[in-house]
Structure formats: structure tokens, C-alpha cells
């Protein structure tokens, strides 16, 4: 950053430095971020750095499960996909019946290395085919006919984050332009959004300007609301500034592809490597709503997904952080088994999802769907998505899942 004298301290040390320079702790503390004042007084302990972390990857639009993990040996597959069906030269075999889409070479490698689990045929009863509603069902962890005001991760924050001392690090970090519904909670928790992708230099300069603007009294400086806004904004900016510093200084140990998705994952790795106390990260990859001419678009998306995840995993391994991180994908629905008239696929139901990490039990979990369906009929799910959540909550995040999901689900064996 060009500014040699940062206006806002971003660490406890910088903050204390202000004190001795005569700015005065108490004089400053009216607008000082609460956690810095607290920690300056209390000599707060260092953040715990060995907690488990969940990275959630949303495949927005509805990923075509049948062309991701392909049941190539099933004759029904050819019947349902006369044009979109993948030939053996476009497939990477998993076993005698299933194969990856050829664009998933990197995921295929991860599977062979024992780091990737595939949970097959995940869905829920009475499936909904609206993007909005089905996303909401996945994000809130509700039944198909139930409307919950909070997200499943928000309820996890309510359970796990309340009562812990404020340290400034958010409970959840979202990389994208819209706070995910998964994060909505009953109580207030610090959550944070970083713009997706890169362009860090511009971002840190924008931030420096915003910081100046927040510092500079304008309009009605004496008005209580103005003070309140400045105070709250500064709290948020301190976190953001700390994050920007982390992102700017991060040295990767892996070659990330140039896609915005991979850029977001790189930023997640940077924050994890910096020992951020955040337990949940949310990254989104959009464009899976492939109603027409699906073949190239879908291959391209799967390649982005696959190569991004592989770079992320290898970066974490090189930093010896891989044991701490579980990455999981989800999509609001799979797509219709029968292709449509436009060489695409329409909204469907169940689909496989991926779990990635060094402590994952690799290979296939759950059962594959039956493809013996009539034209335009949908797949019948065999694993409830909330069983996946409950496994993650109980066995990875160490939080009692029934408190979050309202009931018990039989755990799956992927951790």
C-alpha cells in the first residue's frame, strides 16, 4: 500500500503503538474496533490454529450429475443421452460401471490419490425444480415444504460461535457478491465477504480510500448515527484490511489456473494459512444451468472446478494444512436424465457431490441411482443431503447435528 502511515491499526501491536505515541488509548477507543481495545487490555491469547475448516463450493444453476460421474456401462445412459452421452474417449474410468467426465482429469487424480470422495445420488423427498426454492432448501437445510428463516451454517454459528470471545475474525467468509442464505443466523455473528477472483492491488487501494473516508468527519460529524456508522464500518474495515494484507503477501505453493474460481480458492488458502480463526468458507461457481448446447459449456465448467480444487488441495498439502480442511461441493439439483431437444438438459433432482481432503475416506459413498426411468422422468434420490450435512457437522466441525438440523440422520462414512 502506498500510504506509509496506515490510519487504522490492523494488529494488536500496531494498536498499542498508537497508545504510546500519545494518540491515547481511551481517546482513540471511541471509534476503535471493539476487539482491539479488548485485546489490548486483556492480552488475549493467540487464535487457535488447529481447528477443522469447511470450504463449501456451490455449483450454481444445477449441475448435470449424469455427465459428471457417468454410468457409462448402463444401456439406459445411451438411451437417455443419444447426443450428449459421452463416448469412451471422453471418459476417465472410476470402476467397471462409472467414469468421470473427461474434463475432470484433476479430480480423477485426486480420487486415485485417495483424497476425493463421491457421495452418489444426493437429494431430498418431494424435490423442487425451481432454482430459487431448491437453493433455499439446500441452504437452509429444510424439508421441501418447510420454510426456515436461517441457514444451516448460520445455525451452526449460533451454536458454536456464541459466547466465544470476540477476536475480530469472522465465523464465516463468503467469496462473492451476495451473502449466502446458508449464513443467515438467529443471532448476530461477524461474517465477511471478499470480492470473488483477484485484482488485489486495486482492492487494497480502494480500501485505503474508504478507510480515509470513514476517518474523515463529514456532513454531520456530531450526529450519533454518523458516529455509530463510522464505528461499525471501521470494525469491518479492520478485518478487511487484515485480510487484504494476508492476500497480498500470500506465497502460493501451487500453480492456480487463471480463473476467478481458482483465484477465490487461492484467497481461501491464504486466509487459512494465515491462521484466521474462521471455520467456514463459501465459494460459488455459476453457469451450470445448461438448457441448450450443453457439451462445451459443461466441460469447461467441470474443468474449472476440477483444476481449481486440485490446485487448492496441492497448495494446502505443501503448507501442511491439508489435514485441517474439508471441501465439499453442492448444487441445487441435478438435471433431467433425458436430454432435451436443444442438446441440453432441464432441471432435475438428485446428483452426486464431492468431498475433498486428506482426511476424507476416498471413493464412492451411497448408491448410484437407477436409470430405468421413462422419458422425462426424474431420478429418485438415495441419500438425503442433510445426512451429508450431519456427517460434516458431527464428524468434522464437532457440533451436534441434531441441534442444527432438527433431527438425527444416519452418518455417512466419508470422514
Amino acid at each position, binding site marked *: 500500500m502506498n500510504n506509509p502511515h496506515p490510519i487504522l491499526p490492523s494488529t494488536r501491536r500496531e494498536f498499542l503503538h498508537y497508545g504510546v505515541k500519545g494518540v491515547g488509548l481511551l481517546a482513540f477507543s471511541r471509534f476503535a474496533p471493539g476487539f482491539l481495545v479488548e485485546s489490548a487490555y486483556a492480552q488475549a491469547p493467540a487464535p487457535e490454529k488447529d481447528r477443522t475448516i469447511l470450504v463449501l463450493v456451490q455449483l450454481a444453476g444445477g449441475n448435470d450429475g449424469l455427465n459428471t460421474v457417468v454410468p457409462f456401462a448402463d444401456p439406459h445412459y445411451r438411451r437417455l443421452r443419444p447426443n450428449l452421452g459421452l463416448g469412451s474417449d471422453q471418459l476417465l474410468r472410476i470402476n467397471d460401471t462409472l467414469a468421470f467426465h473427461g474434463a475432470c482429469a484433476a479430480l480423477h487424480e485426486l480420487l486415485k490419490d485417495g483424497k476425493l470422495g463421491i457421495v452418489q445420488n444426493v437429494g431430498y423427498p418431494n424435490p423442487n425444480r425451481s432454482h430459487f426454492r431448491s437453493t433455499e432448501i439446500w441452504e437452509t437445510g429444510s424439508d421441501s415444504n418447510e420454510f426456515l428463516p436461517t441457514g444451516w451454517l448460520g445455525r451452526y454459528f449460533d451454536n458454536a460461535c456464541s459466547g466465544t470471545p470476540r477476536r475480530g475474525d469472522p465465523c464465516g467468509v463468503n467469496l462473492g457478491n451476495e451473502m449466502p442464505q446458508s449464513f443467515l443466523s438467529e443471532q448476530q455473528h461477524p461474517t465477511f465477504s471478499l470480492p470473488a477472483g483477484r485484482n488485489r492491488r486495486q482492492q487494497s487501494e480502494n480500501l485505503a480510500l474508504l478507510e480515509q473516508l470513514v476517518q474523515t468527519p*463529514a456532513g454531520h460529524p456530531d*450526529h450519533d448515527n454518523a458516529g455509530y456508522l463510522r464505528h461499525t464500518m471501521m470494525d469491518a474495515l479492520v478485518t478487511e484490511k487484515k485480510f487484504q494484507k494476508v492476500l497480498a503477501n500470500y506465497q502460493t505453493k501451487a500453480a492456480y489456473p487463471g480463473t476467478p474460481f481458482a483465484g477465490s480458492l487461492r484467497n481461501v488458502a491464504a486466509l487459512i494459512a494465515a491462521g484466521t480463526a474462521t471455520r467456514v468458507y463459501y465459494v460459488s461457481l455459476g453457469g451450470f444451468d445448461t438448457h441448450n448446447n450443453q457439451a462445451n459449456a459443461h466441460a469447461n465448467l467441470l474443468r474449472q472446478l476440477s483444476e481449481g480444487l486440485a490446485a487448492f488441495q496441492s497448495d494446502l498439502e505443501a503448507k501442511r494444512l491439508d489435514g485441517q480442511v474439508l471441501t465439499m461441493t453442492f448444487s441445487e439439483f441435478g438435471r433431467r436424465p433425458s436430454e432435451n431437444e436443444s442438446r441440453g438438459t432441464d432441471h432435475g433432482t438428485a446428483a452426486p457431490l464431492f468431498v475433498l481432503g486428506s482426511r476424507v475416506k476416498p471413493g464412492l459413498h451411497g448408491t448410484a441411482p437407477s436409470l430405468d426411468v421413462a422419458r422425462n422422468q426424474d431420478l429418485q434420490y438415495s441419500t438425503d443431503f442433510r445426512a451429508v450435512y450431519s456427517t460434516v457437522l458431527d464428524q468434522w466441525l464437532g457440533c451436534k447435528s441434531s441441534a442444527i438440523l432438527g433431527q438425527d440422520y444416519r452418518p455417512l462414512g466419508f470422514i
Partner: protein
Amino acid sequence: MTMGQPPTVLTAAEAWQTLPVHEWNEAAARHLLQRIGFSAQPAELARVLKDGPVRSVERYFAKMPALPKPRMITNLEKHGPELFRRISAGSAEEKRMAQQEARERSREALFDLTIKWLTLASRPECSPAEKWLLFLSDVWVVGVDKVKNSALIYQHHDILRHFALSDAVSLAKAVSRSPAMVVYLDLQQSKPEAPNENFARELFELFTLGEGNYTENDIKQAARAFTGYRQRQGEFAFLPRQHDSGSKTLFGQTGRFTGDDVIRLVFKQKAAGTFLPKEMVRFYLSEEPLPAAYTDALGAWWAGEKYDLHKLAVKFFSSRLFFSPACRGGYIKSPLHFYLGLVQDLGLSVAPLPRQLIGNLRSMGQMPFDPPNVRGWVGGRSWINSATLASRRQLIQALLSPLNEEALNGDEQIELAAAYADGIRNFTLDQAQLTRWARLAPAERARELIQRHVPALAGTEIERQVVTFLERSAQHSRAETATRAALATLLESPSYQLC
């Protein structure tokens, strides 16, 4: 300054006098537009400045704009009877399917309604009336989470719209018959042998009088008077056989009162005159209530005017108190105010993309037609915390960057194509405008950006900082990129969250 004390030197009698001509100026006109609407656009500002406060408010509140019934609401109503039949008579499986279909249709219809209403409200000449409607709906609250049927939500707002500028007594009577209200506050279940008190209680506490101005017995008696109110497939129905026509005593009066009689008695209470003005203070001016003497004075006058809502609006919005220094500059914009203000300030149209828009509004804390409870939105500082501030910043980023059309779902691309076909494409900041700004020298560019979007900052230290930022960015970034960044930062700053 806050409003806990009497504002400046105005007495209660002076407070509601019309603003003297010599105090009318551009700053006052801007204050008027930002508070009764969502922003001060140059054309409106010039006209308001010329017309003065009384004529301007009279013009904005001359009549309510029409909001034609959105297509999806019509569809929902068309399918209503058939869905109702399947839900009440079908097999268990049939019933489940029909319920799901009803929910789907209702949700789609609500999205359609939301986009159509936001589009109407974003027209500067309609903003004050639509904000007034939002105000009334924040008093006479119904929520879609309980009502479930968006057609009733549309109808409820149509009732509010119809009576918004008439008198508060007629409005109250009409709203007590709103099918959405009948469902929302349980009149539907109220019977002579078991009167449900929910509506009667909120009528007194939250809609007309305020706490402390009625007794528990008044509620019990009023509940009896409202028995027999029903809604049948979206139509109000009064069932005489479900109505308790016996003698009731409330507010010290005895008679065989009906629901309308109760409303008539309510508006004989002194508190009925002060209640709505107090709500206006909260919604339009400040989280701090005014000292009682001020609202008492206005309430007494308003009761004498037979609770005329149009007269109340004109009096309130052109008063000396409304323009007093204590009432300026410190109001935290609600998420809807913030969003619609941005749309107007950036010269945009409301994008026909409910998923993004509703997601943004929800994460900022205000979904239209879906208040948290019967009290409505709390407002003020409760809008602001680290998560909602982050959401405000994200909204700005989204409106300043070109749409990423490839990431849209199929149905969204269809909506977008339809809008393009109608010649509407300004859903995010016009890149040509950005280029025009980028050609200006830093000092001139900073002045232009500030003058146009946050004029309160013109000539301040902040303007100088923006100039420095633009000069420094010129060394390594494209002028467009730096300009967009400077604009985003100005819109993210505390000043823009206030008006």
C-alpha cells in the same frame, strides 16, 4: 444533535407552521426529496426548488400511482379455485402436490410483484407516494410468511393504495376487511364462543392508538365485535351467524357494537390523533420520539381535520419542524431506501432478476412484503451491523460492474432478453458514462462524482482525498477502473448511508 430535546427553538405551536419562504433553499429541497422519496434527482430538485415545499408535497401526494396487477398474480388468482378444490377434496398425495403448486405459484407471483413495485417506486415522480405506501404498510402490517398467498398481499397493498390519501377512519375500516389481514391476525378463526383477540389487540396497540391507551377489557370487547369477519378464496365475507351481536362496553361506551363501531370509537380517542404522527416521525425523521407536546399539537389539529391523510402529509412534510436542523442529515437509510436511491442516483432500471435482487435485499435485512413480525421493521441503527454493511457494499459492486450474463440461469436470461427487446438495458452502471467521466482530469472528475452522488461532501476534505486517489491511480490503473473504484467508495462511505 438528537431529537430527545425540543428541536432548536421551535415551540410546539410553531413546529407545524409552514416553512417560511426565506428558509427555503436547495439544501432544504434536497432534504425534502431524500426524506419523502429515495434521492434528489436534478430534474425533480429544480422543479421542487421553484415550486416550494407546499406545492411540491401537494403535487407528489395529489393521487397515488396505479400498480397494475402483475401477470403472475393474475395467474395465481386464476388457478386459485382449482388449487383450493384439489387441496380440500383430493387424496393425500393430490393434496400435497396441490399445496406445493400453490406455494410455487405464490412465490413466483411475489417475485413478480416485488419487481413491479420496485420499478414503480424507482420512478422519481412516484417515489414519495410509493414511500408513503411503504410507510402505511409498515403500520398496517401483514406478512407473506403467514398469509402465504401473494394475491392477498397484492390486494392488501391495493387497499392501502386506494385509501392512502383519504382519511384514516375509512382506511382502518377497509383494512379490517382486507382478506390478508383476516388471515394474518386470525379473524378467520374468531367465533362468538371463542373470540380471537389478535386483531383487536394489534388494532389498538400497533395500528391506531399505541400502548397505554386502552384496557385489556377494551380488547376483549372489541374482539367480540370483529367476530364473523372471514375471507373466502380472497374475498371478504361477513357471516352474521358467526358474529356476536350482543351488547359490549368499551372506551366507556355501551352498545351492540360492530367492528366498524369499534373503529369509530377508536378515532374518538385522543391517542388516535397522535399515533400516526408519531409513526411518521419514526419512519421519516428520527429514531428518537418527539416530546409529547409536539405530537399532541399535531394530533389535535389532525383530529379536527377528520383524520385526512392527504392534509396530514402536506402539513408534516412542509413544516418548520420537518426542515429543522435537528432533523437533517442523520437518518440511516433503510435497505429499500438505499437500493432505490442507488438505482436513481446511478440512472438505472430495476433488473428483472429476482434471485439476485431479493438475495441482496434479504442480506441487507429488508425483504419487501415480508416484515419480521406484526410490528414491522424496527429501522434506524438496527439496519446496520458488519454483515448488513458488507451486503450494502456488495450491492454497490454488483450495480457498478457489468452483468455476468453467462452465470445467469436460463429463466433469468429469458427475462433479460425480454427487457432488452423492450429497449431496457441499464441494469448496471452505463460503461459509456464511466468512460466520459474517465476523460475528465482528476479534480474535475472528483467534483463531478461527488456533486452527482454525495453533494454533502462537496468541497470537503474528502473531495481532496478522492482527487489524490484518482491522481495516484493514474500511474497504474485504467482511468475507468479508478473512476469506478472512487465512485464505489463514495457510495460505500458513511455519508451515503445517511440522508
